[in-house]
């Protein structure tokens, strides 16, 4: 697809098609990708980068109803296959920045595109489609305590309506990928913190997402375990999945050198390839 074509189709639709260069291979798990025509709204700049961008924000502001100014004009592009750390002091807007990506919160102003979904125009009933194209991992794992590791992963697939056969196959695949193939039938309480986070990562991988968003995934883990999880993310990133990770872990950021986006007072104050954590504690 040419840049010019994107200009015409991208403006008319709420979903910008990815160019073949950046198109994902495994779209079969995401059945409903119909694009719908809407009235014209200008997309600021459609460049080669923005076609390939998995996440793009253009001058995004967020003010919460209680008056908190969380974000004050954020513009950023994250390309397919990137590994990005989001750092910054607590309360600087990291969480809001992350939550905007899966439409947990809506921006007050600005444009956001994630996986080709136009977030500001995305209707509520289409949010599930966006979320199926994204994997999310949290500090507190968010596993269901009464379900086994396999059932926790299966839960995410059941929800999107796969058949039992497909679910069984996929659950085994992703649990093997995170190295838990022999602990599939254990309950979260029988697993260590690191293993629980691996289950959560497996669950986020289950839908074959183009991007994984992780909010302090190592926040609850000891250093050794954290490194294990980081190697897992590294491995997932090597397979082409984009990773956006909010973190407070200086040691990891400084030794596994990746792009670092630093947010302070709701603004991006630093955006470097192979950056440093950069905060003294």
């Amino acid at each position, binding site marked *: 697809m040419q840049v010019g074509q994107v200009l015409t189709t991208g403006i008319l639709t709420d979903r910008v098609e990815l160019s073949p260069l950046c198109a994902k291979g495994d779209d079969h798990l995401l059945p409903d990708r119909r694009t719908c025509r809407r009235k014209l709204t200008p997309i600021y700049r459609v460049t080669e980068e923005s076609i390939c961008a998995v996440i793009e924000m253009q001058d995004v502001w967020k003010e919460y109803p209680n008056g908190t100014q969380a974000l004050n004009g954020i513009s950023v592009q994250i390309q397919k296959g990137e590994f990005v750390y989001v750092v910054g002091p607590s309360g600087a807007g990291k969480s809001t920045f992350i939550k905007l990506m*899966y439409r947990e919160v809506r921006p007050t102003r600005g444009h956001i595109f994630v996986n080709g979904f136009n977030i500001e125009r995305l209707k*509520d*009933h289409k*949010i*599930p*489609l*966006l*979320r*199926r194209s994204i994997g*999310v991992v949290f500090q507190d794992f*968010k596993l*269901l305590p009464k379900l086994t590791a396999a059932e926790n992963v299966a*839960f*995410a697939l*059941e*929800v*999107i*309506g796969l*058949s*039992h056969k497909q679910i069984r196959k996929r659950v085994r695949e992703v649990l093997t990928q995170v190295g838990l193939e022999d602990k599939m039938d254990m309950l979260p309480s029988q697993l260590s913190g690191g293993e629980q986070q691996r289950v959560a990562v497996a*669950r986020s991988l*289950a*839908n074959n997402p183009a991007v994984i968003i992780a909010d302090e995934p190592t926040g609850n883990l000891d250093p050794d375990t954290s490194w294990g999880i980081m190697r897992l993310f590294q491995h997932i990133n090597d397979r082409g999945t984009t990773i956006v990770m909010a973190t407070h872990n200086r040691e990891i950021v400084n030794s596994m050198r990746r792009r670092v986006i630093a947010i302070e007072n709701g603004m991006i104050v630093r955006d470097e390839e192979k950056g440093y954590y950069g905060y003294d504690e």
Partner: protein
Amino acid sequence: MMSRLFRHLREGIKNVIRNGWMSFASMSAVIVTLAVLGFSLILTFNVAQMSTDVTSQLEFSAFLNVNATQQTGSAIAAQIKALPGVESVQVISKNEGLAQMKKELGSEMGDVLNAFKQNPLPIQLVVKPVDPHQIDRIARQVGEIQGVATVRDPHQLAAAIFRTLAIVRDVGVVFVVALLITSMFLISNTIRITIFSRRREIEIMKLVGATNWFIRWPFIVEGMLIGLIGAVVPVLVLVYGYRSLYIRAKGVFSGLSFPLVQAGDLGVKLAVILLAIGLFIGLWGGVMSVRRFLRV
């Protein structure tokens, strides 16, 4: 599609069981509500049948002056027969009246009547109108005929019965409506508690891209189950209760000798109505709580 249906059903059943006591409480409310409703329905069906029965039998009596002869009796009877809307006039002579009264009073008391030298009873004319609703007008006209002493109107008795039953029914309706609303709120509250106890699952479901309806359905199924189980109990009790009553009474309400509504017909009607209402209040309770408490 089928597997999804089964999943919602399974999750709904799980919800009911997981919330055992609250489910039980709201089921009980539905049971009481529908039992009262079912009882009033049985009453209403029978009263409806009774009232058609009674009105088709409605007639009144006119009494002539005591000294009127049999000829005047026949003449007045013919005159009444000529009035518009009169179906039949039956003449009960003085002797027939006396015999009937003796029979009604029984042998001992009947002897009292022997003390009269002359028959003290007047000639009685039993008038039956074509249309029972015309009975008041005809009775008035008959009362104006010369030679007619008094008109006795059995309609007054029936009217009194119907008035009482109508009040009972109206009070029942108010009662049932209040109970229905209470049940709905109880169901909705039960489901709210389930939603609260499953909020983690709901949160995760939302994060992994479950559609809103996928999240909602199990709770609506839960409501429908509570409503349905709450309806089955009173249906069974009332249908079997009424059937045994019907068999024992041999199809007749002995006190007033009116025929009862057939047990089979009534059972089917009752079951359909109560199950439908149970399902509906369950569904409504479910939809209400999903609307109000499930922020998806």
